[in-house]
């Protein structure tokens, strides 16, 4: 199963608007994607805004993205890029 590790670069971490953007992108990918915090147990469904918010990912936290299915690699690359990008 393809995996990516990303340090979250946005100043707000994975809260508010960045979380919504991430969840929307994960949903649009059309495949199952999970996200977990490195150092914590548990993976959240990346298409679930509540589960993602509940992870309480802060600026600089490292997360693990996993996906399975067609184009999993391409989807993970897009999502990793979204998280790794500092705020525009």
């Amino acid at each position, binding site marked *: 199963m393809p995996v990516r590790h990303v340090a979250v670069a946005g100043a707000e971490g994975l809260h508010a608007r960045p*979380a919504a953007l991430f969840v*929307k992108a994960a949903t649009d990918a059309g495949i199952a994607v999970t996200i977990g915090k490195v150092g914590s147990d548990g993976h959240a469904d990346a298409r679930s*805004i*509540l589960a993602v*918010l509940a992870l309480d990912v802060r600026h600089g936290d490292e997360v693990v993205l996993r996906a399975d299915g067609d184009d999993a690699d391409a989807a993970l690359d897009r999502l990793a890029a979204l998280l790794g990008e500092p705020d525009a």
Partner: protein
Amino acid sequence: MSGVGIGDRAVAGPVVRMGAAVPEPDDVPRTVDVDVESTRAVDALAEVAAELRRRAQHSRDADARDVLEAQAMMAEDPTLRDEITSAVRAGKTAARGIFEAYGRYREMLAAAGPYLAARVADLDDVRQRAVAASLGVTVPGVPSPGYPFVLVATDLAPADTATLDPALVRALITEQGGPTSHTAVLARARDIPAVVGCADAALLVDGDAVLVDPAHSLVVRDPDASLVAAATEVSGSDDAAFAGPGRTADGVAVALLANVGGPDDVGAAVRAGAEGVGLYRTELLFLDADAAPERGAQVQAYQQVFRGFSEGQRVVIRVLDAGADKPLAFLDPQPEPNPALGVRGLRALRAHPRILETQLAAIAEAAKHSAADVWVMAPMVAEPAEASWFRERCQAHGLSVSGVMVEVPSAAMLAPEILAEADFVSIGTNDLAQYALAADRQASGLPTLQDPWHPGLLRLIALVGAAGASAGKPVGVCGEAAADPMLARVLVGLGVTSLSMAPGAIAGVRRSLAAVTFEECRALAGKARAAGSAAQARSAGAAV
């Protein structure tokens, strides 16, 4: 139907009632087939998501749009949906399943700390909507029927009023609340006519035609056309005829100023024809901060406000009024039995002199680079020694015009001695009424004691007005009382020389003062202060 009128314009329109909050659904087993109940849950969530998305699309406010979109996602959340359908399968009703599932996430978010605090409120709102949808009841909150209407509610909370659009909500009626309630403050600030504390409004239903007449504190159900024409014509005067500085009919000047919280309010103040700023609250810079803002950041913020005004216009800036009931982490708040009576305002600043010194230095620097007359003011002064200490600190920073707020009753009674140590005073009627009548501004069920027309407050104001006249120094009012067009006449008659209010209220006050002479103001003041109750004072003040 009678209540407390806010504003002076009369408006007629159809009633749409505020959706009532939905109580926690009972945890009883579902009596309906599992598939039917699951569908009910899923449909409710989809309905809520669609409605929130629709509001997001129609929102002109980018921040509101982001919140609404995030909320729509919360309603469509796949993990949540799965949890809810499982709960229904296990025997819960759709409403209860929704309530509990959101409740679990609510706890998670609440535990995660301040970052997510706002999201908890958003989640609560989504939960309310989803539960309501699953029960088939009106969704709580401000309705948007798609046409201009008169909003009727038991009362309104700040969360409800944040999104009110004056173009659609033509007037407000609340069953509860008084002249200092959130609804009253908001209505004045946005120039939305309102009648609050109107218990009979419980009888109004969606679709009723009403006339809201704040000048007479009345709501008329099913008014006839001639009544509507008469009421709306009288108060619908052409504002252009009343532009210009505040003055009575016989030319006595009463400066009409704006209350502002920061640079964002300056535009509205200038457009409303404010002659300056009577109260610039500096707390917003300090709230939500871990440490007092740096001098440079303060200079920038103050300059942005000062620069909105020109030579000859005053900007009265109040130093940090916090502590106790407005706790700031860096002010090291200690638990107090009565925060409103504790270490707050100037008392908190004396305990943290560096914060005051930095603020005064920043104000002085910002003032140097602007044309406006910058006056500095201290909050919560109770005795002359505090006023003289504050003046000395201001002068040490080159700030030559300093004064104090009169919001503590002792300050009103010691006004002559305080005016010997201050260049001006400004009466904070909200807190002064609170302390004088021993009635918490936020408490419900005490509207007659929170009414700024109360003679117990008016006589204190009279003491300050007289002291100001003897000393030849300005006496301003910056509390909600200043925004009441009828009460403004009484205040002028009591010796008040300037009135500061939310920009939306300026036009109404200007119109009202222009319609009476100074002697008439004094006569009204004499009758109002001699009354034995707020209601009597109001009647006395309405008859010219």
